[in-house]
């Protein structure tokens, strides 16, 4: 192996350090059980690599100049070319922060696994390394290698050591779909490579300009299919809500927080930089996919009462919000409105970073709950805030952030996305169709935000408030310190980035302008008071809200003696059965959005013999997932039917197959004559 630095001071040594740490981590996970505790060693090395990733990403963003390196020189050929630029740097920062928190969390979370028995843990550093490579790969070969490693290592982590039937099924579906996505990417890269005569992305960019419009469009659609599948955008999302919940929680956090963003990275890198700017309809398509993912994602999340499945559907929602921003950026750069493109891209990239923070804290908290209670079923949890205050606080902050509430980070990037949409609606340089679509997306984003509030009031309330709904929830205890540290650190980052939204978005704005141009600081449809903040007065507003709330709390709440009494339950003894469940909490929304959700319910009542009084009541309810029902089920059915047809010529006799071969050969010779 040889490293060749072309540019960049500390970049290449840092890259080498990261590679060495992750390699060491993987080796440690494979090491035999010893006094060294390979599990802890492996996790620590991975955590150190994540710190280096943050340093590398931050220095890339700060310096603005790319780091270029070639790796694996064999016989004069370099197999892997990497070029890390500020865009890649941003994704590296997200990866490093989420990875560091996940690694710290894993110290406590995986400790029940015992010392060094789980060899699949070696996939964890490989997963981190492949992600880091995806964000910097500079030729098709390196990119596909990293992409495939990322898919395989994450699949291994999902499936784990001894998978149950459900887990194995989810892992299988994930593998199948991720490879369909890779196949689409390979075809697109092949088209580009044959036009460019090279596999390097730089050559791709030059060749894209010479492609016919139809050729460029088909490459874009193929890449979009590949990347949107990885991102989990509707309608290519089916693997996500199945695979994410069954993975260990620190892996779920990384998959939701960072891995699906590789799809976003691909769309931005190719749609805006290598292929782009394209025609306006690219942006419209991405905007439509984004809006559909956002609304349907959160609607399905509301119907879930498995905490991690709920969070997985929220990943689809947030990918949708990010894609809305990317869509506007594509639209605007197609029409040459670079200031708007930079604003919308900033919104998308900012939300990418924010989602990495709050989704990681939520998944880690879900892991903490699961290890404390042994269940992810909202209807078996409740009242955990008292026993698990740290987890409750971290989850609550993450929930407020993902619901887009000020002063947290989720609000800042949703605010920017709204600004992009309203700006696009009023932008005379765009077509009327594009402007109408942008304004329609305003309603979609508003609906998404309100549904997210509903969903996270439900999730937080059902898990942490009220009375425990099961014995195990009543006996739960706070989990290991390392897990608390990881969660609180991420929650603090959500607050910090939210309060410092202006400076952070300013840095991300620099990356966006580097990609799509635009000279003005940031053309938004809101001009804040000079000197307060670049967006709105995020920090001062937070201080004022906190000050008013603090004063009211001190004079109205804290200084009063409180009498405590049981909750009034119309004369009965309070018990958990009186509380609303996750299912009943979402009932009104289930009915309101019935035309989309098509809820079914089945209630069977068994009476005490000879009396009108019920002995047992059974309730079963579910909603239909319209994409699964209308798209995948027919697809599955027709592919099975096609297989049945083909089966008719499968006689099993060797002579028949030889005859087929001869016939096929003759036909081929006749055709190719």
């Amino acid at each position, binding site marked *: 192996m040889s490293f060749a630095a072309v540019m960049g001071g500390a970049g290449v040594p840092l890259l080498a350090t990261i590679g060495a740490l992750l390699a060491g981590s993987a080796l440690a996970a494979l090491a035999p059980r010893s006094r060294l505790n390979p599990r802890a060693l492996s996790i620590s090395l991975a955590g150190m690599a994540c710190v280096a990733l943050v340093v590398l990403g931050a220095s890339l963003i700060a310096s603005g100049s790319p780091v270029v390196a070639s790796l694996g020189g064999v016989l004069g050929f370099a197999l892997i070319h990497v070029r890390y630029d500020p865009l890649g740097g941003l994704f590296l920062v997200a990866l490093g922060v989420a990875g560091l928190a996940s690694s710290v969390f894993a110290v406590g979370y995986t400790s029940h696994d015992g010392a060094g028995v789980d060899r699949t843990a070696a996939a964890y550093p490989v997963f981190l390394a492949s992600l880091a490579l995806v964000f910097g790969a500079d030729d098709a070969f390196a990119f596909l290698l990293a992409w495939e490693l990322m898919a395989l290592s994450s699949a291994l982590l999902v499936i784990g050591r001894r998978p149950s039937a459900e887990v194995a099924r989810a892992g299988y579906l994930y593998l199948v779909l991720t490879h369909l996505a890779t196949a689409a990417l390979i075809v697109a890269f092949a088209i580009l490579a044959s036009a460019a005569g090279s596999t390097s992305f730089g050559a791709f960019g030059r060749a894209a300009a010479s492609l016919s419009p139809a050729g460029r469009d088909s490459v874009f659609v193929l890449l979009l299919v590949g990347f949107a599948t990885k991102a989990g955008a509707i309608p290519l999302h089916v693997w996500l809500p199945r695979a994410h919940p069954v993975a260990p929680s620190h892996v779920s956090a990384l998959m939701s927080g960072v891995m699906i963003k590789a799809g976003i990275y691909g769309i931005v890198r190719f749609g805006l930089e290598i292929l782009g700017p394209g025609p306006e309809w690219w942006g419209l398509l991405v905007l439509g996919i984004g809006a559909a993912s956002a609304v349907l994602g959160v609607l399905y999340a509301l119907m879930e009462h498995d905490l991690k499945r709920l969070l997985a559907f929220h990943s689809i929602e947030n990918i949708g919000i990010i894609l809305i921003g990317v869509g506007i950026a594509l639209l605007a750069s197609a029409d040459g409105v670079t200031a708007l493109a930079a604003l919308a891209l900033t919104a998308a990239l900012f939300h990418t970073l924010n989602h990495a923070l709050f989704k990681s804290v939520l998944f880690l908290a879900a892991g903490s709950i699961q290890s404390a209670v042994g269940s992810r079923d909202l209807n078996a949890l409740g009242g955990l*805030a008292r026993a698990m205050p740290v987890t409750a606080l971290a989850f609550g902050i993450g929930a407020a952030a993902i619901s887009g509430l000020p002063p947290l980070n989720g609000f800042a990037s949703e*605010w920017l996305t709204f600004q992009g949409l309203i700006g696009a609606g009023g932008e005379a340089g765009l077509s009327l169709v594009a402007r109408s679509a942008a304004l329609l997306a305003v309603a979609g984003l508003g609906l998404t935000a*309100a549904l997210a509030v509903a969903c996270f009031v*439900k999730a937080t309330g059902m898990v942490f408030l009220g009375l425990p709904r099961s014995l195990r929830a009543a006996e739960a205890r706070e989990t290991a310190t390392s897990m608390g540290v990881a969660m609180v650190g991420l929650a603090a980052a959500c607050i910090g980035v939210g309060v410092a939204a202006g400076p952070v978005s300013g840095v991300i704005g620099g990356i966006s302008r580097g990609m799509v141009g635009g000279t003005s600081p940031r053309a938004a449809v809101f001009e804040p008071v000079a000197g307060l903040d670049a967006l709105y007065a995020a920090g001062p507003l937070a201080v004022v809200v*906190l000050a008013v709330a603090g004063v009211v709390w001190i004079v*109205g709440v804290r200084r009063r003696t409180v009498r405590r009494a049981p909750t009034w339950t119309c004369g009965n003894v309070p018990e958990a059965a009186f*509380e609303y469940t996750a299912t009943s909490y979402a009932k*009104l929304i289930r009915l*309101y959005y019935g035309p989309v959700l098509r809820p079914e319910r089945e209630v069977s009542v068994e009476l005490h013999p000879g009396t009108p009084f019920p002995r047992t009541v059974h309730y079963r309810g579910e909603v239909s997932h319209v994409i699964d029902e209308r798209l995948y089920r027919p697809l599955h059915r027709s592919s099975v039917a096609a297989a049945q047809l083909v089966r008719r010529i499968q006689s099993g006799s060797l002579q028949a197959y030889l005859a087929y071969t001869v016939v096929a050969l003759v036909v081929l010779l006749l055709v190719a004559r």
Partner: protein
Amino acid sequence: MMPSTAVFGALVVGLVQVVLTLGVAPLLLGITKRVKARLQYRQGPPLLQPYRDLVKWWAKQPVESDAAGPLTGAAPAIVLAAVVVATLLVPIVGARPPLAGWGDLLVVVGLMALGRFVLALSALDAGSAFGGMGSSREVAIATLVEPALVLALTGAAVAAGSTDLGRIAALGVASGGAWYTPPLLLAAAAFAIVAVAETGHEPVDNPDTHLELTMIHEGMMLEASGPRLAILMYAAEVKLVLVAGLFAAVFLPVGIALDLTPISLLVAVAAALAKLIGVAVILGVLDASLAKLRILALPGLLATASIVAAVGLATRLWLPA
């Protein structure tokens, strides 16, 4: 010298707005109740009764459920803070609101969502069925309200080329009658429909109900007592000022002061009072004359608002003025 006068003037206008909006909030509830009572041939409570209620609750000892945690105490404070700070961003008296340039209409909507999130969450803290009822209804209805709310405000933002409420109001006042274009009136109609839902009046919610099974907003604060009840009630009263003030700033800006002369300030205060009292009277009439809609019929009403707002935006884009 000029800047200091401007700063002083802005301070005066801001202070006037703070005193006016925070002081008048309970009175509006009194007016609504009085109008409702008179239309039902009742005497009704005195206009100042809401103030007396607040004082009464403030003096009482709070009772807290033994299932409740720290959220139950913190929630009223956060709810009130969110709604008060939101009113400071809305130009009600002068075109420069007290916190001019701190945030736009999206921040106002965000702060309203923050209040709703915390209140709906705290309703689940005591583990009572009624809290769950009110909370789940509130968040579900909000999903119908918010798209229309944002879409209606977006119409005005596109017209003004800015989401800055101060700038929208100033432009509205400056353009006089030309501000009230058909697209704006459609947006205003949409806003008016959802405003009724957002402030919890008929036909969406009955603020005077004593039947737990029909409560929405009241259901969420059923467990609150003493000063906490006073804080939450006051927050609801200020929220009415917020929503009415938002409507007036965007869709009926006439009278809002553009400069700082005593005359225009006086006019602005009178106009703001007239608008707020007008809204309170209309809500009283609605409360008296409309029956509550079945909760399952609400999407019909509230989706209409979204559609009206969307039609407003479509006419703005596709029909050249």
